[in-house]
């Protein structure tokens, strides 16, 4: 039943379609980061993590925490694809009292584990989850996706020191390095490179992958040590707005305000890719 890399690629594209479906309702949202991280989130929910959409509060579940909370559409899209809630709910994105606000709310949507959005909060919370699970003797793991743009927040490095000092080997942090933030290239706004070396210096095991390459994501997750004292930092090099050729690697994709024509063109591009991928999988 474990999905293949080819199948996961299709599911990630379907999740991209879910993002477009959300934007159809509001016509504005944090697109770029949602799409740069969506392949990672797809691999986590649909293959890597032990989670059950029918029992989203199972104490033994693996946890996923979106530290870069503005990438929420990426998480919502995958939660819908994984069956945590009916796809029709996507149409409420951004509407009054929707369970899908611009930043995730753990009390509104099954599968959401924390109220993130203020940057630099996710990693310390993830550390607390990992510590609590360890205290319970649980084998569950905690996964988080951080953004490269949030790394200047000092609380991240408090979290980095905690995870290492307290030997949270059950914690896996992806850093979605899409290289762009709202004011421009992260290297120009505040250069936090070398990111991997920083985490390594804090005592983490560090890996580098192409975070939009499903085979690399899955391959790395399979090879991660299942036990051990060191937390894992995965520096995932990605492309902002990955999958929409007109927007890839552009700053305006950070917060996109599409016209109906933009959405139709984007949908056609993704559907064509799905057809190709399904053909290849057949």
């Amino acid at each position, binding site marked *: 039943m474990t999905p293949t890399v080819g199948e996961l690629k299709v599911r990630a594209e379907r999740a991209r379609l879910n993002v477009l479906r959300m934007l159809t309702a509001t016509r504005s949202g944090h697109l770029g980061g949602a799409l740069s991280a969506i392949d990672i989130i797809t691999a986590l929910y649909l293959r890597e993590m032990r989670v059950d959409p029918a029992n989203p509060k199972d104490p033994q579940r693996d946890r996923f925490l979106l530290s870069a909370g503005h990438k929420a559409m990426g998480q919502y899209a995958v939660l819908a694809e994984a069956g945590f809630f009916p796809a029709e709910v996507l149409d409420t994105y951004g509407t009054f009292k929707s369970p899908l606000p611009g930043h995730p709310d753990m009390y509104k949507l099954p599968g959401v584990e924390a109220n993130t959005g203020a940057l630099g909060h996710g990693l*310390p*919370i993830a550390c*607390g989850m990992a510590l609590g*699970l360890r205290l*319970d003797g649980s084998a569950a793991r905690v996964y988080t996706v951080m953004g490269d743009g949030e790394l200047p927040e000092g609380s991240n490095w408090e979290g980095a020191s905690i995870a290492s000092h307290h030997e949270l080997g059950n914690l896996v942090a992806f850093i979605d390095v899409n290289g762009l933030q709202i004011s421009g290239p992260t290297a120009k706004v505040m250069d936090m490179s070398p990111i991997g070396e920083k985490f390594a210096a804090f005592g983490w095991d560090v890996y580098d992958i192409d975070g939009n390459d499903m085979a690399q994501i899955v391959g790395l997750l399979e090879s991660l040590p299942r036990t051990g004292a060191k937390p894992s930092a995965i520096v995932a090099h990605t492309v902002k707005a990955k999958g929409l050729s007109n927007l890839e690697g552009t700053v305006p994709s950070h917060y996109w305000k599409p016209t109906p024509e933009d959405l139709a063109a984007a949908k056609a591009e993704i559907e064509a890719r799905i057809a190709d991928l399904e053909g290849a999988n057949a």
Partner: protein
Amino acid sequence: MIGDRHDPRKTFGAAVSEIAATDERIVILSADSGGSSGFGTFMKEHPERYFEFGIQEQGVTGVASGLATTGKIPVFCAIAPFVTLRNFEQFRNDLGYMRQNVKIVGRNGGFTYADLGSTHHSLEDYAVTRMIPGVTVLAPMDPDDMRGAVKAMLAHEGPVYMRIGNAPIPEIAEPAEFVIGKARLLREGSAVTVVTTGYVAADVLEAADALRTSGVDVELLGLGTAWPLDEEAILASAAKTGHVITVEEHYEVGGLGGAVAELLSGNAVAPLDRIAVPQSYVPTGPYAEIQQSLGLDAASLQRRIAELVATRKG
């Protein structure tokens, strides 16, 4: 009645440790602050539930939130400004907004860290913590009240902030059950309602008793819960005496006086005077001398309350 004095930190730490010894959900978090918060024994007896993080309050507050999602009851005690202001956004988002069952305890509250100066004083903590929806703010008045407050805090589901002081505090009242949100009627009177909270209650009580001896019949309400207010008790007493005075070791903006002003603004049953710390960086030096310079010691309180009563009655 002013009884034996007890160290507030040791009293607090012992009270938590006693309950934590048998409740495995309770975990103690330290930002280089555990020993000085009264957890010296607990850390030796239960090292598996005692976690040191070094000096970093934002990270620890986030960790507390994450721990609480797994059913733990984290208790994090350190110097008051560092667990309310330094980490304010974590307090608001990770504890308040996420509705986590975490207990944050600010020790050396007010200006009890007297000579260490304004960086180590905490004269905004009631204001900032009570602004966060769902947060309960406790300020026990004496050692017995503190033991009761600890028990109630650990039994309460949801984020709690508790302020404790530094210098030994005396027993000021007969032991009574601590009920979150309930005021204690420390003295019954008819001339004026004095409302106070926290460890300053001992000085306020001394002032109130001296005033009663001199013919000013003070009714004294002691709030072990600074927020939410016991509105019923305050309004009933205010209606009876026709004059309310708040006394606190906090800035005059936003604290107990501010909260009572908000209450009375919608229920104008009595005029209100607020005795608090003026909006300034207070002098450094011995605690008692700072108190005197701000008119917050028992003798000054006696004089100021008498003056306010005379002004309002005149």
